[in-house]
């Protein structure tokens, strides 16, 4: 195994490990918002590391272009997608855990049942 291939496999395994930690958060964390926070970051970083490993396993200019584009799209849209999902969950009034201390969005929204207006 060449050094480049060893780095590629290391990247791929690290990406899968990061992804698995995010999925573990899906079990351990208490409410939807905490779970989404865990997975949207871990899934973006994990997939990016996997893509990097794939590029290092097949190094060529054409692959660098394709994987570079995929990396750019992945890192840019994973954050937007997670944000959209969190906003949709909030609009659907997904309950928060009892440990939540304050909800600034509810205070700003007069239609929210917990706003106190």
């Amino acid at each position, binding site marked *: 195994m060449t050094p480049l291939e060893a780095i590629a496999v290391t990247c791929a395994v690290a990406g899968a490990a990061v992804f698995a930690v995010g999925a*573990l958060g899906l079990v351990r964390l208490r409410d939807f918002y905490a779970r*989404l926070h865990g997975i949207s970051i871990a899934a973006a970083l994990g997939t990016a590391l996997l893509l990097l490993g794939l590029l290092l396993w097949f190094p060529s200019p054409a692959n660098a272009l394709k994987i570079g584009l995929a990396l750019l799209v992945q890192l840019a849209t994973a954050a937007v997608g997670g944000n959209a*999902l969190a906003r949709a969950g909030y609009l659907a009034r997904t309950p928060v855990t009892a440990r939540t201390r304050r909800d600034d969005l509810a205070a700003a929204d007069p239609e929210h049942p917990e706003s106190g207006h």
Partner: protein
Amino acid sequence: MNPVDIALLLLGASIVIAVGRILVGPSKADRGAGADVVFFGFVGIVALLGLRLDAELVVDVVLVCTLVGFLAALSLARLVSGGKR
């Protein structure tokens, strides 16, 4: 055991956990988050299989998957909020 096999097992376990979250819920938004993880876990498995089986073809597949993944996340968000805004 090939280290890539361990990575494949990790991703498989992540997908099983996410399917469990889809089944358990409890809210519609939780199910959406689980479906998101299932999609990206599947993309990761495709990438790892390409690495394991030495198939350069998967580079194109993964590129298309990341482009479609954004639309998947947005339509899931739309589904969760019930088409509101």
